[in-house]
């Protein structure tokens, strides 16, 4: 179900990007070549979508809990994999098209999470489906920019790359917090100060530092985009041994959950997704030529090296003085989820319960209440901005408790045609609420700052 949701979501996002590119290219009167590259991508994606939809009755049956035989189950999985292939290929080929800038809300989010006005990092879009980070200075070295010129360019800072498909998807931006964790790691030389031990590349330690930084500021929601994206991978990477790069994901999940537990933050709201991920991972292990033995061996090796380092890494991350995600933020996020389900932005909350404010207002009499008392009662309506981490967590809880129903609505079965527009509308709307919420929270905080100065 999670995999289907992820791929249908990515499909709707790609459809939107391609449609928007079509308008852009037509409007700019671009040459035939550009338009033709775009048309080719649209046709390619449509072909994969068409093939997938041929199995929509089986998909609908699976969604409605109708037992499928083994051949039917394989058919559903094959159909989903065909769609995944189409989505992944087209996303890679977006490199051929004109690019847009990242949404400003992505910077709002990072500024708020890390409490920094100047992030010293830019956010750009990439054709990779996952996010990554690089240092401007490292690229200058790679492209052989002269030392003298490099001096003038070294202020470039860090660049955070975000998938095109996630441009308007704040829930996926939790990964940006991980990437920004790399910036902090470099700035404070955290992983450099931790001896990785024989056979363990320091890059693996750096990934753990970034994971802990993201979890520190965003809580358990920092893991979810990684899990959803990985579930969309058709197979696991073959790992002979751990090397430069990310530790095996199940180990990352375990380390982050342990880290959060030590901070007093539970992960109960996301247990179902962690379990779904474990099932998906086990299924993919079984499908490997060697029954997954190479991956499991690499995982064991990584575990034996990394688990003892978790303590020193968490100490260093905790000493950075970042705003910490607390259990209370999780509780608040559940309340915000209710507001989101009433189809409203979730950027702020009142400090007093509404019934109490209503009572206070009700006790006033027009024309007889002194202005001071009237203002005091009215000030109960003032709202305070909520942290971006609560907005993202609420968004994830909302998505995880609503996507299944939307999938069933999208694939009604019983001979009725699937309607992908239903899911696309749902995805758009959730994006809209969350983008607006992040924008509101940023402006709200800025206005309060100005009012406080007065």
């Amino acid at each position: 179900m999670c995999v289907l949701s992820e791929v249908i979501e990515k499909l709707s996002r790609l459809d939107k990007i391609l449609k928007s590119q079509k308008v852009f290219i037509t409007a700019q009167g671009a040459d035939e070549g550009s338009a033709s590259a775009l048309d080719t991508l649209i046709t390619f994606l449509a072909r994969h979508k068409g093939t997938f939809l041929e199995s929509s009755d089986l998909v609908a049956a699976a969604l409605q809990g109708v037992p499928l035989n083994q051949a039917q189950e394989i058919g559903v999985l094959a159909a989903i994999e065909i769609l995944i292939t189409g989505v992944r290929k087209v996303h890679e080929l977006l490199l051929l098209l004109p690019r847009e800038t990242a949404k400003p809300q992505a910077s709002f989010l990072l500024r708020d999470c890390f409490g920094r006005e100047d992030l010293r990092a830019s956010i750009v879009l990439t054709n990779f489906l996952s996010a990554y980070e690089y240092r401007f200075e490292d690229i200058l070295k790679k492209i052989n920019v002269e030392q003298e010129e490099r001096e003038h360019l070294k202020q470039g800072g860090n660049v955070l790359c975000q998938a095109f498909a996630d441009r308007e998807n704040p829930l996926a931006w939790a990964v940006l917090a991980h990437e920004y964790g790399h910036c902090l790691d470099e700035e404070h030389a955290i992983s450099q100060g931790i001896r990785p031990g024989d056979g363990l590349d320091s890059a693996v330690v750096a990934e753990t530092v970034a994971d802990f930084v993201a979890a520190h500021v965003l809580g358990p929601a920092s893991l979810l985009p990684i899990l959803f994206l990985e579930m969309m991978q058709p197979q696991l990477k073959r790992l002979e041994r751990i090397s430069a790069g990310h530790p095996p994901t199940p180990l990352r999940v375990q380390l982050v959950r342990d880290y959060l537990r030590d901070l007093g933050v539970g992960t109960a709201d996301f247990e179902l997704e962690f379990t779904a991920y474990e099932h998906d991972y086990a299924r993919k292990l079984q499908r490997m030529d060697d029954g997954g033995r190479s991956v499991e061996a690499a995982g064991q090796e990584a575990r034996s090296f990394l688990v003892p380092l978790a303590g020193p890494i968490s100490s260093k991350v905790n000493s950075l003085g970042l705003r910490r995600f607390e259990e209370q933020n999780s509780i608040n996020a559940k309340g915000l989820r209710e507001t989101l389900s009433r189809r409203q932005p979730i950027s702020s909350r009142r400090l007093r319960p509404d019934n109490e404010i209503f009572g206070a207002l009700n006790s006033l009499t027009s024309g007889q209440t002194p202005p001071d008392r009237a203002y005091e009662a009215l000030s109960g309506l003032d709202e305070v901005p909520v942290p971006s981490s609560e907005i993202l967590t609420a968004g994830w809880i909302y998505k995880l408790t609503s996507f299944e129903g939307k999938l069933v609505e999208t694939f009604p079965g019983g001979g009725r045609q699937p309607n992908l527009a239903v899911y696309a509308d749902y995805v758009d709307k959730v994006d809209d609420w969350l983008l607006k919420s992040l924008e509101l929270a940023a402006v709200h905080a800025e206005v309060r700052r100005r009012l406080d100065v007065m």
Partner: protein
Amino acid sequence: MLLSDIDIAMRLVNPDPLKRLVVTPIISAKRQFGPSSLDVRLSTDFQRLENMNSPYLALGKRLPDEERAYTERVVLAADGRFFLHPGEFVLASTLEYFRLPDDLAGRIEGRSSWGRRGLLVHATAGFVDPGFAGVLTFELSNAGRLPIELTPGLRIGQVCFFQMSSRSLVPYYAKQGAKYFEATTLEASKADTDPEVANQNPARRSP
């Protein structure tokens, strides 16, 4: 009947969902409440009309789809600035998100202090239907002779609310062809979706 400050305030926390008015966020009630209105703030999003790519606005042009060709979108940072030049017309939106119950209508107006600087906040469409939800659109123009500096969060407008004689039979959310329902950011004109425009005689359609 025009709602007073206390009536507006009580609607914002009314326990009856059918009577509840949503305006969020209220950043400072003390500053935002007038005797019979609520001040609203400017958001980060602006849309300038481009006059270089098209000779005129044809009836059937699908402005929403082609807004990138005919408009320039400007999104400010929370502490960014936007300069509205004399005679310029831009679309912007309220920071606040609204949801009106079925028995309240609203009207957006400018604020006197900004009017004196030549800032007009709507050209013609200041009415808010019962049952509407979304941000409200500012149709900003500068009638003065100097550019006006604007920043997100400024209180440039105010909304007043009217108690209707009865609940609307077909509130905005239920209306066929409600074009701007639940918009969270400003949206360009969708006049082309009006059947009178969409179904005009092809022989008389603009080139």
